[in-house]
């Protein structure tokens, strides 16, 4: 009975995943990345042609042709991996999470395979002030502004014994009035637009806003629908973005910590293990 359950649970194996294994990990997210060894114009063209969203596209710059992969538009459908002759493969690490909107896009030179250094957005002064104020505790209010609930399932997983978000001093709270951060998912529907605005206004200042999931980043596959008002940033100001359809718990955690610039203590994204 009640004590048997507790005893059984205590006897179970320890499953907590160490932080260095989580940060930057996007296993199981279906997000693609470029394998420079197989990148050429033909493979890139076939991959771009297979992309049902605008996540993959060509861009011509002064010093050459680039293949752009904008994770903010990517649903992880896998078409490019199937069609791209090896030029795209499932990403295991280093998908940008918890960064400014332009930094969600990565660019590879189609002819040399070299990746263009990512654009580093200048940190907003208000955001820095919040980071300094928040210290080691963070209260998050999650708002579903119209998502398919895929993101909610993964956000809920953050509190399970594998990820245990509370070990970082991060809690989900019941009211925006208790929150330092809004974690917003979904394309913002017309029926949720007003409620999202009111929730944002109820959060005390200073506060951060993260748009999570491909729909939150760009409206995703619902952008342009009669029932959708737009992406999160078209309705309230957004500080950083976490892509993914849905983002895995590891990506969400990376994004939340990256948004707070906490990861620098461990040597930055993906640097902890090296």
């Amino acid at each position, binding site marked *: 009975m009640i004590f048997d359950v507790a005893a059984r649970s205590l006897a179970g194996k320890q499953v907590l995943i160490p932080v260095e294994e989580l940060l930057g990990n996007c296993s*199981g997210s279906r997000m693609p990345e470029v394998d420079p060894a197989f990148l050429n114009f033909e493979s890139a063209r076939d991959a771009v042609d297979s992309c049902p969203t605008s996540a993959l596209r060509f861009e011509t710059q002064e010093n050459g042709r680039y293949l752009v992969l904008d994770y903010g538009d990517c*649903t992880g*459908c896998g078409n490019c991996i199937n069609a791209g002759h090896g030029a795209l493969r499932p990403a295991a690490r280093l998908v940008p999470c918890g960064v400014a909107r332009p930094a969600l896009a990565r660019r590879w030179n189609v002819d040399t395979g070299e990746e263009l250094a990512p654009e580093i957005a200048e940190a907003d002064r208000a955001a820095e002030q919040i980071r300094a104020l928040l210290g080691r505790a963070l209260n998050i209010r999650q708002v579903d502004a119209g998502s398919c609930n895929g*993101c*909610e399932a993964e956000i809920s997983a953050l509190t399970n*014994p594998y990820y245990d978000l509370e070990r970082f001093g991060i809690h989900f709270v019941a009211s925006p009035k208790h929150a330092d951060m809004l974690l917003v998912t979904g394309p913002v529907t*017309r029926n949720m637009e007003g409620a999202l605005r009111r929730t944002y206004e109820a959060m005390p200042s200073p506060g951060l806003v993260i748009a999570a999931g491909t729909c939150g980043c760009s409206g995703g596959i619902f952008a342009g629908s009669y029932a959708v008002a737009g992406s999160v940033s078209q309705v309230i100001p957004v500080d950083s973005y976490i892509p993914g359809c*849905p983002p895995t718990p590891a990506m969400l955690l990376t994004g939340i910590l990256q948004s707070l610039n906490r990861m620098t203590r461990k040597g930055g994204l993906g640097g902890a293990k090296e």
Partner: protein
Amino acid sequence: MVSSRSNRDAGVAEAQALLKMGNSRLVSLFGSIDDFGATFVHYLVDVDSREYRHFCEQVGHAIPSAVSITPAAAWYERELHDLYGVAIEGHPNLQPLVFHEDWPDHLHPRLKGTVRGEYRFLKVQGEGVCEVPVGPVHAGIIEPGHFRFSVVGDTVLHLELRHFYTHKGIEARFEGIDVSNGVMLAESVSGDNCFAHAVAYSQAVENAFGLSVPPRGRALRLIGLELERMLAHIADVGALCGDVAFVVPAAYTARLKESLLLASASLVGTRYWRSLCRPGGMVRNITDEKLRELGTRVAETATEFAELAKMVLETPSVLNRFESTGVLKREVARALGVVGPAARASGLRLDVRRDHPYGRYRTLALHVPHFNSGDVLGRARIRIEEVSVSAHLIADAIREIPSGAIAAAVPWQSSAQGFSAVESPRGELLYFLHIREGRIQRCHIKSPSFQNWPALPMSMPGNIIADFPLINKSFNLSYSGCDR
């Protein structure tokens, strides 16, 4: 077994006559508009739990309401009225369902007319009655919706739902896209049941084109569908424990669920089996070796869960909260056309896998558990038993895994019409598709959540408001799946 009646004059009358007979059930009711602007109304009716019948009629202005024949028609007719402008004669409460007050007046998805968004809640009057509004933004990590309680003290007299906050216009989104791209949209109708949606959509394409999925593809789909059911049911039982403040099993089940998600991520490359199903079969193979590894993890999880669930059901403080709470009576469940675990907990033995078998289920004798209590306990026990059934189905499928192809060739540029249902973790999920030259003209999604939401308020009167989260969780309906 599927038959189709397209009668341009009397489809509605025929469908309603059939619904008057005791052995039929309204599956869905929806509209469509053809190239010439003519509006059609479609009825899908299940006869004897054995045969789906499709009726279709072109309509001019008004159709008679079917609510007096089957209350299950009430929301469908309101949606038809909102989205297709079809007037419904004799509907008892034809208030807007999809559009809310803030919706722009001029922005109707299909018609030139204006949008009506004002809504009036039923006013319960009497001494000591007060209203408690909850939502759309809730306290937990859940989807948005509005609940309006009328209470006296702690006791709920009436609950009214206002949903469609997550209405994304998904059915309209399907229109005009290539058949091959439809899976991606289907997977985002209700994310936690994404594989069931992907399979239902793909089967509708396969039925329309008369395709047969190769045996290995059918087996892989069964494994994905049953794994999704296990994940959903394990999480639901854990959440029910969490709602009665029994946090240890809540954390325990969260661990069991995550262990299966991690196994899928490492063996299949996707946590929730997204991007794996496509019309014709599966996108890529899963090796026998990986399937055996997955099978081992599934069996271990099922054993652990069964032991945990037994302990939970033997805990008096749990039974005290679950038993006789949120009772959905059999007659009410039948009248509202309730499906899935909620139906089976109220004595209705409905399961698409057995009644309208598809894929690998055609060759199986399926055990369908059912209970008659209709309370939270019944809905919890249904899920507990079904986890075990699913684990056995997965084990059998892996042990007998056929070799060979995983997908059939698809005539991507063809034209056809078809529909198909699957038993999703929440119940009967059906896709209706009209395809022309490889593009989707109309896609209707019959969602088990749309069907079951009206039943939740019927199980509330007499319960205390503090039990609402528990009762709501015991139905565990999808908001996005309902709102689409």
